[in-house]
């Protein structure tokens, strides 16, 4: 009777250990999952940052190119403007002079 009770207690103890081990393993799985999750999250964020950085670099190159084009065109426009005006300046001077003396 006593032996049986002890045997059963031993079995119960084993059973408890099985459950404890499972619980411990479960905790470990959860902890690992948490770490893994953080890694996945960090990776996604890092990828997004890299993507944003690449996009910014691409846009900066575009800006540089387009702005150079805009300014180059403006310089050409200025040259064209001066060229056109140079043939007319004499006429403009005569007109302004006449305006001043009241002709």
């Amino acid at each position, binding site marked *: 009777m006593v032996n049986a009770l002890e045997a059963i207690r031993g*079995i119960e103890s084993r059973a408890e250990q099985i459950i404890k081990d499972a619980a411990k393993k*479960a905790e470990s799985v959860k902890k690992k999952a948490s770490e893994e999750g953080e890694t996945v999250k960090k*990776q*996604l964020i890092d990828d997004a940052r890299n993507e944003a950085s690449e996009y910014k670099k691409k846009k900066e190159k575009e800006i540089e190119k387009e702005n150079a084009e805009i300014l180059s065109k403006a310089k050409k426009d200025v040259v064209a403007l001066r060229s056109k005006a140079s043939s007319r300046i004499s006429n403009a001077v005569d007109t302004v002079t006449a*305006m001043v003396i*009241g002709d």
Partner: protein
Amino acid sequence: MSKIETAESIEAKVEKIEVTGEADRIRKIEKRIIDEAEDKAKTIAKEAEKTKKEMLEVKRKEGGLEAEKITRGGTNEADSLKRQKTAEARLKAKQMIIASREDLINETIEKSKGKLHGLTESEEYGGILGKLIEEGATSLGGGELVVIFAGKGSKTATDLGTIAKRVEKLTGNKTTINVGQENLKSIGGVVIRKADGSVIVDNTFEARIDRIIRDIRIRAAKILFG
């Protein structure tokens, strides 16, 4: 497994042992207890796996949201920077054109001043001065007037008596015009004033330019760029 449950199940199991064959029954009890424990362990493991999947999903979602925010923010920032820089470049280009136009208009005015100064040495300057004196004297309403010339030589080239008569006719006031001795620093033209100095009409070329500068700019721009 709680202590109460364990205690109860032990009582029950002992009872059974007393009734049937001990070893066999203990084995049966052992099998049942271990099976139950293993089932529970399996459930715990299953739940842990489920929790693991959920946790990963949550983190993936969090990361996804954060990543989307970063990507969107970065894109918006870069696009906005591009718009700003392009607008700045366009403005700079526009300013270059405006400055160039402005330079050409100013160049025209400066050349015109040179031409006006050149006129003071010409034969037609006497006629120009006559017109400027008559215009100024008339706007003063005639009367006793003094004219101050810019430069030399022009004093003799102008018939002030004839001008005074014309002014007298236009204003209905007896008019005399005398030559003032003051020095007038100007590229050309005259200053006409009442003899008592109460009213002055500045008809130097510079003053006339200043008075009509807006019209001059508009007209010059039309000729140069029209």
